[in-house]
């Protein structure tokens, strides 16, 4: 082995995972076929709120190929409510969310009955033979109407549609001043209402689950982001001892938060397999996904910014109403809390108050969707910063610059009490301005305005930060979250010197196989090619808390560094014994121990692995292994940041918006693989653009989802999107040894306000100060006409 190795971390390594994915040698859950496996279909409610007055599955039982059919009543003694792991307040209303409805349905799409058949088509066919009569109940869809006196109730037994009210007040917390006082003294006070429309995560792989009910050895394959959490909860919900439950997340086709639930479909498939004693598979259609997999966003934000006339912010208050949907998912109530500490963003705000009320409606439940709380916060603050700039006749970049935390002020304790470890907002912004050609575009904007050009130009600014790397267990506990936030890694050096890394994170497109190989290669001094990474099977990766909240690298990556460190230390003991020196005399570099001052007296980690495996000559009391496990629990969150700039052309005659140039400079700390980071930024930005311009889940007055397929829910195609010019600054995190911050959600958090700010900026001369997302040509045109936006 050569003494000098080029560091792997930082290299644009092509992904190891691609080889299977580009040749179709994949294992999606729906590809799994077991001997004797049966197929399940679910009858879903067409009503948003109704009592089930009659339900008869006997006709379905007679259909060809059908093995059994059952209803919620048949599961009375078996099924229990789906779990919510985040009871954000002591008095939070937590209605029972049965996987299979018993006597009432509360959203269109709620599972009502089940058929198990020999093949999927027979199961679906037999659904037609199920007889159901619904007695319709009043539907409540609008959040404010749901909170009004006398509103129809989603859960009658609860006596209210309010789920909870959660408050953070910097004066009360002792982390800042009193907002009421700041508002009373404000030279400028701006209030705005922003509405975060409902979105559908739209992972490309529909969810699928297979359950093999072998007694004492239950296995569930599921298209999930959270095999470990699912295993624990599956055990608790079914009474199956956890050591008899194995959960496997095989290839998983995207998640974006949409696959972090413990779902009705997983539980129903479990119950079905239990009833028939055979493996059972359920794969949803896209139309099923749209109504049954959780949605995201759907929040009304009232925000008030107080400032001095020089632009200095003096206070911020935020009042949210957040739509829970009909039931609570795994972290539904907590999503707004993930944004609660982000409204102050990168700014030095002395006083802050946040209040959020969760409300039930007759809609599909909401839960985490890429960014979860933080895109909402970033949107509101970055939109209102532009309003402040207009009010004070300042450039939007300048008003931000006057308020943001300076590089030399880090570490900085925010008005929420969070300590931002590092950041350089000037550097990222200056680079972005230069990449965009900000001054030239401003000049062009002025020229177009004075020429009365029908196509107007706008520039949108979004200087964002986010808290990610979920999360310090102690903080999660303080926020009443039901689990911790540590992560686990194991490193096995095999007898042949090949390395197996096992991670408790559970990737579904993020490239962990490649990135973890790079980290382990550096830490152990072995070739990148000699590392394999295993995950997503609780029998292989025993411990872990899975993948969400941009946590895998910032938490799981550090666990890997620690496990590698332990391997090297164990190897050192053996090397010292075999080289007949003191462990302190050994230097470790590039995969080899070398006795200081004795050239030639070296031993590689591969040689040590072989010697340890043979165990012929080990020091007394040393076990024959250099393998190691480690867990890492971060002390704080990580805080990626960046500046996104969007130049948009708006055709004032048609309302059409065209993104002319999109520039982003992200600071995600130290970069393990620039290729992967860039890919994450592209995809994230596009999801943010999609919220701004294209996507919206729409219900009709009866609670039917009108955007129930990809025909109506506008997922943008390649033809709808611009090229994104992405660049980076690199301010390493000081909170972890790799200096990494996480990148999975950054683009989505930053992009939406950049785009909307650009369109509104283009239309300021027309008196436009807001347009409701998504900015369809019709909405933009109406805004220009001075109509309702």
């Amino acid at each position, binding site marked *: 082995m050569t003494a000098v190795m080029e560091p792997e971390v930082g*290299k*644009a*390594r*092509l*992904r190891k*995972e*691609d*080889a*299977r*994915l*580009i*040749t*179709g*040698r*994949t294992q*999606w859950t*729906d*590809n799994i076929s077991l001997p004797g496996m049966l197929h399940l279909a679910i009858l879903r409610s067409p009503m948003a709120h109704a009592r089930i007055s009659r339900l008869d599955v006997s006709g379905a039982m007679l259909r060809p190929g059908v093995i059994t059919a059952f209803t919620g009543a048949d599961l009375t003694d078996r099924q229990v409510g789906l779990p919510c792991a985040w009871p954000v307040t002591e008095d939070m209303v937590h209605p029972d969310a049965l996987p299979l409805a018993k006597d009432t349905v509360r959203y269109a799409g709620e599972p009502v009955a089940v058929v198990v058949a020999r093949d999927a*088509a027979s199961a679906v066919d037999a659904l037609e033979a199920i007889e159901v009569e619904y007695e319709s109940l009043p539907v409540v869809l609008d959040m404010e109407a749901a909170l009004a006196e006398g509103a129809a109730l989603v859960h009658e037994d609860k006596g209210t549609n309010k789920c909870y009210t959660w408050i953070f007040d910097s004066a009360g917390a002792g982390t800042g001043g009193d907002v009421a006082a700041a508002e009373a003294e404000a030279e400028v006070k701006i209030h705005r209402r922003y509405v975060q429309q409902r979105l559908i995560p*739209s*992972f*490309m*792989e*529909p969810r699928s689950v297979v359950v093999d009910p072998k007694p004492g050895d239950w296995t569930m394959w599921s298209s999930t982001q959270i095999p470990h959490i699912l295993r624990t909860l599956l055990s608790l919900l079914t009474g199956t001892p956890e050591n008899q439950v194995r959960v496997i997340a095989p*290839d*998983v*086709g*995207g998640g*974006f938060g949409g696959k972090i639930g413990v779902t009705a479909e997983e539980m129903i498939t479990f119950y079905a397999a239990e009833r028939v004693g055979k493996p059972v598979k359920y794969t949803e*259609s*896209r*139309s099923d996904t749209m109504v049954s997999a959780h949605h995201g966003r759907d929040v009304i934000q009232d925000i008030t910014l107080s400032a001095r006339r020089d632009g200095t912010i003096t206070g911020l208050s935020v009042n949210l109403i957040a739509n829970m949907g009909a039931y609570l998912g795994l972290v539904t109530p907590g999503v707004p809390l993930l944004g609660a500490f982000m409204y102050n963003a990168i700014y030095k705000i002395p006083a802050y108050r946040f209040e959020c009320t969760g409300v039930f409606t007759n809609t599909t439940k909401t839960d985490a969707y890429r960014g979860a709380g933080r895109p909402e916060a970033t949107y509101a603050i970055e939109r209102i910063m532009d309003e402040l700039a207009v009010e004070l006749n300042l450039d939007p970049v300048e008003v931000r610059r006057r308020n943001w935390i300076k590089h030399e002020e880090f570490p900085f304790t925010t008005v929420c009490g969070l300590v931002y470890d590092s950041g350089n907002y000037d550097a990222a912004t200056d680079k972005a301005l230069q990449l965009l050609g900000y001054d030239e575009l401003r000049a062009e904007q002025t020229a177009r305005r004075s020429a009365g050009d029908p196509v107007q130009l706008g520039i949108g600014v979004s200087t964002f930060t986010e808290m990610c790397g979920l999360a310090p267990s102690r903080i999660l506990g303080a926020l009443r979250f039901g689990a911790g936030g540590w992560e686990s890694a194991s490193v096995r050096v095999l007898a042949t010197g090949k390395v197996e890394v096992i991670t408790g994170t559970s990737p*579904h*497109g*993020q*490239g962990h196989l490649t990135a973890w190989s790079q980290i382990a290669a550096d830490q152990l001094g072995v*070739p990148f*090619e000699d590392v394999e990474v295993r995950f997503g099977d609780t029998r292989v990766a025993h411990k872990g808390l899975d993948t969400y909240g941009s946590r895998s690298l910032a938490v799981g990556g550090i666990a890997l560094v620690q496990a590698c460190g332990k391997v090297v230390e164990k190897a050192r003991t053996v090397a010292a014994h075999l080289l007949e020196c003191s462990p302190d005399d050994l230097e470790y570099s590039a995969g080899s121990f070398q006795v200081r001052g004795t050239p030639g007296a070296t031993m590689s980690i591969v040689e040590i692995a072989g010697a340890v495996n043979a165990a012929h000559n080990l020091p007394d009391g040393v076990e024959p292994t250099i393998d190691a496990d480690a867990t890492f629990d971060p002390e704080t969150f990580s805080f990626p940041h960046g500046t996104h700039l969007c130049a948009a052309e708006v055709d004032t005659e048609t309302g059409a918006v065209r993104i002319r140039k999109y520039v982003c400079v992200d600071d995600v700390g130290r970069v393990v693989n620039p*290729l*992967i980071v*860039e*890919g*994450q930024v*592209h*995809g*994230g*930005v*596009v*999801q943010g653009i999609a919220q701004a311009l294209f996507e919206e889940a729409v219900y009709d007055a009866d609670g039917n989802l009108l955007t129930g*397929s*990809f*025909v109506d829910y506008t*997922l943008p*195609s*390649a*033809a709808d*999107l611009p*090229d*994104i010019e992405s660049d980076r600054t690199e301010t390493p995190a000081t909170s972890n040894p790799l200096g990494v911050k996480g990148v999975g959600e950054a683009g989505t958090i930053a992009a939406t306000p950049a785009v909307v700010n650009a369109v509104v900026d283009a239309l300021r001369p027309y008196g436009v100060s807001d347009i409701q997302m998504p900015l369809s040509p019709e909405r933009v045109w109406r805004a220009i006409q001075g109509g309702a936006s």
Partner: protein
Amino acid sequence: MARISVTVDGVQYVDDVQPRTLLVHYLREQLGKVGTVVGCDTSNCGACTVLMTDPDGDAHGVKSCTVLAMQADGRSVTTIEGLASPDGALHPMQRAFHEQHALQCGFCTPGMIMAAVDLLQDIPDPTEEQVRKGLEGNLCRCTGYQNIVRAVIAAAGAQRGAPSASEPESEPEAAPEAAPAAERAEPAVTA
């Protein structure tokens, strides 16, 4: 049941299918060609795209969720599993998707690659605009499409015999099972 004779990835199959069986379900469930996937039920997403010959023997991209298995009778179908050469050498489009990091979760990838192969049959040297418009019928939620566009343009260059312009370090792998490539090997362009 109806009897069909269809060549899939170079192998001829004779099978009885139900008249309503979709080509994608025939591929996945009867032939075990699970590399081709189903992403929606409205033929919007294109994840199930395969190449199928027309009566003249010319192959075109079709969404196999919108074709009946019976319609494939007498035709030849190429799926993602049959795109590489029999010796395992990757198709230039597969190679380009790898080199340009044009996939993340990989679920849309089989359909996206097949649609892109079809696109280059019609337009061998497309502009970026033509690629974006040409792939309109294939949805991806991970990549933002930018690297997919890059990959298609790179593959077009490779197919025309131009040197691969991949910027990141390239590690061409002859086949998934191939031994790890040497460090920083030159990208070998093979059709």
